[in-house]
Every structure is written in structure tokens, then in C-alpha cells.
């Protein structure tokens, strides 16, 4: 019989019950969803990395590595596998704005691929194994012919298979590109045998030309070539192109660096996977998710549980007479407790079950092939993994909710049955400070009534306020994040990148030729290279920008006219040295160290970098070669040259950023909707509670002759006051949370908090809208109040 009462009672409090279940669903759902998101990123990517033998370390040498050197490195204790590796960006022949990273993993033990279609990878094969995403975007099928341009030479072959590679899981052309664009950039693998034949062709061509210049007659040519193109010469050429060794190892970086130095007798630039764009970005995404997962969902869950405390307490006090009746009838305390406690358990179970479903959906909306990360990560398998700590949190929530209802009822059960039967008496009124002022006497009745009601029901008022602040924080946080990102991209488009095309130069481009090409193109140039700064691998950016095509900006987002007196540290390196102090660094592969004074800090787009002018670099005697030219010329107007490795249209580049922004938009929409639902549910639940508690007073007002509208206004104005206070608190709190988030993300981006007026307007208006909507919903109930019924019985 009590079970029947359980459901009937639950039904009579349906507004409260449903809203509590919704709150718990939202709380658990958002908490689980956000945490599953980052954990799934970690889980899926690390599985994919393991499947494709993603390199732990990459060694770079401008002069390349020999076979013997590879053997020496393979022999280091703790190195599990190593291969010579080549990765070079090449243009597709006859296509504008399409290029591929061409990779060769010599012994195919590290940095391998998963074939999704076509032939298995063959070490002696002649064809291309092409990125399946690039193939899909450009309508390539297995068996199609593909031609790449390599320093004026064609590399042709059939597409043997379609692949995915951990090395290119986030397929971007360079560090400045945020989002993959498979239409314009992809990757392909060829076998070392094919590489050797390409090299042979290239050498034949160069030597023939040289022999001709030297006056060797055509009939002698083949003989001379055979003489020159020995195996030894071929091997030497090969050694030069394999500028990279990729290896699997559990050693730490210092140990490995030391071991490599000992074995090879020279300093080699060793970068760990944490410095590789793919690993770093994937890690950044999961860290970002961790950060997001730690603040906002906890806020949700906290609001849900706090709402539960107030609501359960109210229900228990309203049920006091019934509890007393059951007790008087002879039901044992334990039985009554069990009866009422099961409400909390029921809400906990239902909310958690629904929340798990919601969490799965939230996670999948981000982490799935068609989800937001679908364009970012190129992986074969997408799962949904739950971090272990989520289970105790869910269990804890259920236990906590059960405990809350247990304690609420326990309080009512104390004493004798007669005591329990006496109705709940609300707290006695006491005067507030404000009432002793003159101002109080001047207030209208409604104002006084509402103020006293707020102070009498402090926990309810506080919860309402908390709900509004939460709603506001989520909106400002979500929209502000978007503003900041959009503002940053605008800055990147207009202030930093003032060029039309970025021309990437080949490695080891001749410095003089590169500079003269830059002036021919009327452009600026930069030279990016790796340096070691106090043991950290960072970039050295040497800039020559008299044309303001490529700019450096300061913390306040203003362009810096670079000084020749010293270097600029990016904001992430701010703790390395103060302005006026000196830093010492050494380029990789060089024993030289240089010292320069820090003259300022700059906001760097992606890389952690030290920036200086070419004038200063020359003064210090640093050896460098330009790596990119920035020009206003159109792609077609740039003459072909041996120096050019590839061209990047800025419009194209910015487009890839836009898809990044659309990921942000998706997250922001989820947050804003969740915030609005949160606001509505919390406010409606508390609004109904306040309405029920005051129904006697409202009925009295109605009997006295107050019109429905006047009473409605009373109810809404209380809501609106709380909203005003909530907005006043929530706005700076939202900005604070956002700043905290940006700080937490600072390892990845150097973002400056930017909030557009629209964000303020939308957040404030939406919050007020929610509050007003709920106020109207509650006020509408007032029309149906039964004066006769409400006035029966004692206070």
C-alpha cells in the first residue's frame, strides 16, 4: 500500500520530481559527456598511435643520417625500434593549391600506416599509399594515376592503397594551420625502393646537365653517367634526404640525447613526441576537455544537488502531517524512513540512468567520425570510453541524493507521533537591518513583502540566485570563448597575416638566393628553426618584415615595430626572463651558444618562440636560412623556383580556421542550451515551491481584493530582483571563469580575453528572458488559486 502512496505522492509533486530528475540528468550528462570526451580522445588516439607505431622521438639532422648511424642508434639500450624517415611537402602536378606530405619509413618499423582499402603496404612496391580522406575529398580511387612535383621532377605512380597514419592524424601542412583541409592538403607513403629510383632519376638529370656544360659529347654520356652513378654515390644521395630518424623508446629525452651524442659524436636535435604537432594537438584537445570537464559540469552537478537539498526539505515538511499520521497509525520509523528515502533513490537512479544516455550523446556529438572532432582527427576507430572516476561520482550522487531525502525525513520523525502530527511551523520573522532605516517606511507593500519573503526563505532565495549566476556564468563562458577565438582569428587575418600567399622554401635553401627571391616577390621573410633554451626545445623566429606582410604583436594585440637591440619572448616563455635580462640559447646541431637581451614579449600564434630581427641575427652571427616568404602576389604570379617547396593561400588557410571555429560554435551551443535549460528548471522548481508556500498569503491578498495582475506582478518582481542580483554577480564571475579557462589553455594558445557587446547583451537578455518566462509561468498558476481551499486550516 505504501508503494502505491509512493507513486501517488511523487505524482502530486510532479513538477518538483520531474525538475529534479532533469537537473540530475543534466548534471550527470554534462559531467559524464565532457569527461568521456577527453578520455575518449586519449583512449582512441593512443590506440591508433600504438597501431601505427607512432614515433616517441624524432632526430633531425640537416645533413641527413647514414645507415651506420641508424645502426648505432638502434643499438642504444632502451631504443626499441628505429628507422630513417623522410617527410617532404610536395605539390600535385597540374593542380593549384593541392599538396601532399610524402613520407618514407625506410625499414617500416616506426611511423607505419593502417591500410583501409587496396593493397597492403609493400617495402618494394612502386605505387602510392594515399591518405583516404584526401582521396575522398579529391575523388581519387585505388588504381588512379598520381603525379607529384619534386624540384622540377615528376614522381608518378598508381595509387596502390588508401591509408591512415598516426604521423598525420591531425593533417596540417605546418604549425600555423589549425584545422586539416583534406581538399588541399593530405599525405602519401612510398616505399624506400621507389624513393631510390626517384633519386636516381633526379641525379641523372642533374649530372647530364653538368656533363653537358662540361662539354662531354652525347655519345659518351651514358658511359660517363654509369661511371658517376655508383652505388656509393646513390647511397650518399640517400643519406642526405633521410634527414630524420624516428624511433620508439621509453627513455627520457635527456638520456636519449646524451646517448645519441655519445654514439654519433655530434649534437643532434632530438624532439620528443610532446613537441610533435600531432601528439601535442591531440594532448591539447584532451587537456582542454579535462579543463572544461572540471569546472562547468561540476557547477551543473553542484546546482543539481543543492536544488535537491532544498526541494527534498520542502517536500518533507509539506508531508509532515502525513508522516505523523503514518507514525500515529503504528508504522515504525524505519518503515516510514524507507518509504520517503526511496524518493531520493528513485530520483537518483532515474536521473543517473538518463544522464548516462545524455553523456554518451554529448561525447558522441564531439568524438565521432561525423562529430565535431571528425574533421580534426583522422582515425579509423571511434569509441566512447568512460574514465573510471566517473563511476564513483555517479554512485556517490545516487547515495548523496538518497541520504538527502533520508535526512530531510529523519528530521520530521523526531519526537512523539503527536509532535510529528503538529504542522510544520516556519521560522519566526525577524526584522532585517534595512527595516530600521527611513527608506523602509517609504517602500511599497509589495517591496516589503518580497524583501521579507526573501530573508525568511534564505535557502530558497540563495538557490534561485545560484541558479541564475550559474546560468549567467555558463552563457558568458560559452559565448566569451567563441568571441575570444573569433577575435583572435580576426587579429590573425588582419594584423598578423597581412599577406596574400605564404611561400614555403625548401630545407637548406641558399640564404642569398632566398633573400633575393623575397625582394623579387616584394615580400617579407622569416626563418624558423629549432633552438634549445634552458633545456626546452623552442623555435627561433628570425623576421625580416619592412613591408609589414608578416607581423609580430604584443600582449595588447598591437603590432610591434621590432627592435634590433634584443629578442622578444612569446607569452608562454614569459617566466624565462624579465625584460632587460639576458637569455642564452643554442641552435640544434650546433655547439655555438648565443646571448641576447630580452626587449619585449609577443603573442605567438602557435609555436613557442623567440623572435628577433635579421639585423640582430646577423650582428650575433647566427647562421640561418629563410624558411618562408610572405608576399602580396597571387599564387599564379609567383615564378617557379628550386627554392620553393610549396605555396599557401591565406584565404585557404583562414578557411581551415573557420572549421575550427565551427567546432567551438558546436560546444558553445551545447553550453548555452544547457545553461538555458538549467536556468528554467532551477527557477521553475523554486518558483513553484515559493508559490506553493505562499499560496495562503496569495489567497488572502485575493480575498482582500487584489487583482490577479497585481499578485502576478508581486511574484515576477521577486524573480526579477534575484535575476538582477544574479546577473550582477554572474557577469564578472563568468568573465573570471573564462579567464581561468584561458589560463588553463595557455599551454596551447596565447589567447587574449575578448568579449563582444553582443555576448553581454545575449547573456543578460537570455537570462532575463528565462527568469521572466518562468515568472509568467508561475504567475499564471495564480489565476487558478482556490481562495476557499487555500484559507482552510491553521497556519
Amino acid at each position: 500500500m505504501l508503494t502505491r502512496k509512493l507513486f501517488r505522492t511523487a505524482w502530486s509533486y510532479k513538477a518538483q520530481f520531474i525538475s529534479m530528475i532533469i537537473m540530475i540528468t543534466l548534471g550527470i550528462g554534462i559531467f559524464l559527456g565532457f569527461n568521456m570526451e577527453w578520455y575518449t580522445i586519449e583512449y582512441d588516439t593512443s590506440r591508433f598511435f600504438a597501431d601505427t607505431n607512432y614515433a616517441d622521438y624524432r632526430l633531425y639532422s640537416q645533413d641527413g643520417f647514414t645507415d651506420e648511424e641508424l645502426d648505432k642508434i638502434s643499438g642504444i639500450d632502451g631504443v626499441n625500434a628505429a628507422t630513417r624517415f623522410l617527410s617532404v611537402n610536395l605539390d600535385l602536378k597540374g593542380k593549384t593549391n593541392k599538396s601532399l606530405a610524402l613520407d618514407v619509413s625506410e625499414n617500416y618499423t616506426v611511423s607505419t600506416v593502417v591500410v583501409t582499402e587496396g593493397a597492403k603496404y609493400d617495402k618494394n612496391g612502386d605505387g602510392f599509399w594515399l591518405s583516404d580522406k584526401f582521396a575522398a575529398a579529391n575523388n581519387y580511387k585505388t588504381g588512379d594515376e598520381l603525379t607529384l612535383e619534386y624540384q622540377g621532377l615528376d614522381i608518378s605512380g598508381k595509387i596502390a592503397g588508401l591509408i591512415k597514419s598516426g604521423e598525420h592524424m591531425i593533417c596540417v601542412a605546418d604549425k600555423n594551420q589549425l584545422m586539416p583541409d583534406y581538399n588541399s592538403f593530405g599525405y602519401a607513403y612510398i616505399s624506400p625502393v621507389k624513393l631510390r629510383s626517384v633519386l636516381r632519376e633526379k641525379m641523372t638529370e642533374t649530372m647530364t646537365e653538368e656533363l653537358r656544360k662540361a662539354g662531354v659529347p652525347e655519345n659518351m654520356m651514358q658511359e660517363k653517367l654509369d661511371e658517376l652513378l655508383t652505388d656509393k654515390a646513390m647511397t650518399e644521395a640517400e643519406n642526405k634526404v633521410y634527414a630524420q630518424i624516428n624511433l620508439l623508446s621509453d627513455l627520457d629525452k635527456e638520456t636519449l640525447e646524451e646517448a645519441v651524442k655519445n654514439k654519433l659524436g655530434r649534437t643532434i636535435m632530438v624532439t620528443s613526441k610532446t613537441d610533435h604537432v600531432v601528439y601535442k594537438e591531440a594532448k591539447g584537445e584532451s587537456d582542454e576537455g579535462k579543463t572544461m570537464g572540471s569546472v562547468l559540469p561540476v557547477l551543473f552537478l553542484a546546482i543539481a544537488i543543492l536544488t535537491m537539498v532544498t526541494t527534498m526539505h520542502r517536500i518533507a515538511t509539506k508531508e509532515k502531517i502525513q508522516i505523523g499520521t503514518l507514525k500515529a497509525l503504528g508504522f515504525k520509523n524505519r518503515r516510514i524512513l524507507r518509504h520517503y528515502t526511496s524518493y531520493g533513490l528513485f530520483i537518483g537512479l532515474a536521473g543517473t540512468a538518463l544522464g548516462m544516455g545524455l553523456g554518451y550523446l554529448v561525447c558522441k556529438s564531439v568524438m565521432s567520425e561525423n562529430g565535431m572532432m571528425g574533421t580534426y582527427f583522422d582515425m579509423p576507430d571511434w569509441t566512447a570510453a568512460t574514465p573510471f572516476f566517473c563511476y564513483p561520482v555517479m554512485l556517490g550522487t545516487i547515495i548523496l541524493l538518497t541520504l538527502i531525502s533520508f535526512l530531510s525525513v529523519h528530521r520530521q520523525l523526531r519526537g512523539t507521533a503527536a509532535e510529528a502530527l503538529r504542522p510544520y511551523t516556519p521560522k519566526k520573522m525577524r526584522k532585517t537591518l534595512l527595516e530600521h532605516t527611513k527608506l523602509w517606511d517609504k517602500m511599497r507593500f509589495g517591496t516589503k513583502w518580497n524583501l521579507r519573503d526573501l530573508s525568511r526563505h534564505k535557502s530558497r532565495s540563495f538557490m534561485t540566485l545560484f541558479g541564475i549566476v550559474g546560468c549567467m556564468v555558463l552563457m558568458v563562458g560559452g559565448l566569451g570563448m567563441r568571441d575570444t577565438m573569433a577575435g583572435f582569428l580576426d587579429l590573425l587575418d588582419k594584423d598578423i597575416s597581412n599577406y596574400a600567399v605564404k611561400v614555403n622554401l625548401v630545407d637548406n635553401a641558399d640564404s642569398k638566393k632566398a633573400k633575393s627571391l623575397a625582394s623579387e616577390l616584394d615580400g617579407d621573410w622569416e626563418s624558423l628553426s629549432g633552438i634549445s633554451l634552458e633545456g626546452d626545445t623552442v623555435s627561433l623566429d628570425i623576421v625580416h618584415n619592412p613591408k609589414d606582410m608578416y607581423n609580430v604583436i604584443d600582449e595588447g594585440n598591437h603590432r610591434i615595430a621590432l627592435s634590433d637591440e634584443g629578442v622578444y619572448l612569446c607569452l608562454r616563455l614569459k617566466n624565462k626572463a624579465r625584460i632587460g635580462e639576458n637569455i642564452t640559447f643554442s641552435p640544434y646541431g650546433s655547439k655555438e651558444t648565443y646571448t641576447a637581451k630580452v626587449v619585449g614579449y609577443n603573442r605567438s600564434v602557435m609555436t613557442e618562440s623567440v623572435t628577433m630581427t635579421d639585423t640582430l641575427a646577423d650582428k650575433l652571427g647566427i647562421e640561418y636560412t629563410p624558411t618562408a616568404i610572405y608576399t602580396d602576389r597571387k599564387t599564379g604570379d609567383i615564378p617557379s623556383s628550386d627554392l620553393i617547396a610549396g605555396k599557401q593561400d591565406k584565404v585557404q588557410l583562414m578557411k581551415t580556421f573557420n572549421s575550427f571555429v565551427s567546432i567551438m560554435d558546436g560546444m558553445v551551443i551545447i553550453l548555452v542550451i544547457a545553461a538555458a535549460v538549467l536556468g528554467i528548471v532551477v527557477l521553475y522548481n523554486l518558483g513553484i515551491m515559493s508559490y506553493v508556500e505562499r499560496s495562503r498569503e496569495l489567497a488572502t491578498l485575493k480575498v482582500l481584493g487584489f487583482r490577479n495582475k497585481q499578485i502576478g506582478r508581486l511574484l515576477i518582481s521577486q524573480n526579477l530582483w534575484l535575476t538582477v542580483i544574479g546577473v550582477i554577480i554572474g557577469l564578472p564571475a563568468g568573465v573570471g571563469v573564462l579567464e581561468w579557462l584561458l589560463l588553463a589553455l595557455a599551454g596551447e594558445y596565447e589567447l587574449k580575453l575578448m568579449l563582444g557587446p553582443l555576448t553581454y547583451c545575449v547573456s543578460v537578455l537570455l537570462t532575463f528572458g528565462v527568469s521572466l518566462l518562468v515568472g509568467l509561468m508561475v504567475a499564471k498558476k495564480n489565476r487558478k488559486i482556490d481562495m476557499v481551499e487555500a484559507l482552510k486550516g491553521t497556519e
Partner: protein
Amino acid sequence: MSIVKFDNVTRVYKTGEHELKALDNVSFTLDEGKFVVILGPSGAGKSTLLNMLGGLDSPTSGTITVNDKDISRLSDNELSDFRASTVGFVFQFYNLIPTLTVYENVELVSEISKNHLDAKQMIEEVGLSDHMHNFPSELSGGEQQRVSIARALCKNPRILLCDEPTGALDSETGVMVLKLLLKMAKSYGKTIVIVTHNQSIAKMADVIIRVKNGKIRSIEEQKAPMSADEVEW
């Protein structure tokens, strides 16, 4: 001069398939300035009658005229205005606003009544000047009922409607409150209608209406009503 006229008033409450006739074809008139007691056992329909008269409820059929105005077919807002201007209520359980002080509870009616009286004066007249700034929860039951009388009169209504006004009080306090109620009604010239099952109160009335099973059993005019002191409580 008649101030209230019930003409064939019937009130039927429907609960599911059940029909309950709380008032069955009731007709009577009341003269202004009289002290009327509606007497009957519980469930007789007394309170329904009072609620109809006060505009808290509308009849299923028949007409109710108060102060020459037909109130049986008014809209919600018109009924609110009617209650604000014409009737004052005193309930068994006082129904004061717990979050307002004594003064504020009485002063409250100035927001809706155009020709209201001075709140302070009303409180003085019910003898609660010392408790002007106390909250209802700080007062005894008798004191609370006095506040509710002050509030009802402050609106300056034509009729005072009281539903078991002494029902929640001990007899001594009840008599005191009743005396006050009658004294105030007389000095302000109000018609007063009291619903009760207390026979003793009826002895003081000008008119006694006896109700049973939703019908009027009798209407009795007392030529010489007793004073409160003469009545045996």
C-alpha cells in the same frame, strides 16, 4: 433598506460523478446595518453562503445582489474590485500575512481601497498600539484576530463577513473579540454577518438565519437581542 438579496441561489459542486448541492434554491434579503448570524451544523452550507456573499465563489444558478449590484456573473477582476470596495473578511484562522508587521498588514489595504480609513487609528481602536511593529507570529490568537478585524474595517467596506471568528479562541478571548467586533461594526455603521455553530452568539443577533442541508430552515428577527454580557458563554 436591503443591502443583500439572494434570489433562488443554488450552488452545486461536482467531484467526478458526484454532485453535491451545497446551496439549494436559497432566497432571502438582509437590511443594512443589521447584525446577522447564520447558524447551522457543519456541512450545512453556511460557509458556502458566506463565500457567495463575499464574492469568493459564484452561484451555479440564481442571482445575488449586493449594494444594488448583481455579483453572480462578474469576471475575476470585477469580483476582485467588488471584494476590495464592498466586503471585509474575518476568518477563523486570521489569515494575516506572516511576513508583514501588524501595521503593514492593516496598511496593506490602502493599495486596493480608494476610501480606506487610517491604519494607525484602526490599530489603536482594536487596542494594539503597542504591537504596531510586531509580526503576527509574535502575537496571541486573540491579538491576531483583532488585527484581522482592524484590517477588514480599514477598507471601509459596507459589509463585514466573519467565518467562525471566535472558533480558534478560548471562550474568554472569544467574547472579548466578539464584543470588539460588534462595537466597531456599530460605531462605523457596518452590516455584519457572522457564520457560526455557536448558539450563544446567535442570542445577540438582530437576525438569525438557520441553515441545514443547503436550505434555509428559518429566518428569525429578534426584537430585543441580548448584549454580550447578558449571554451565558
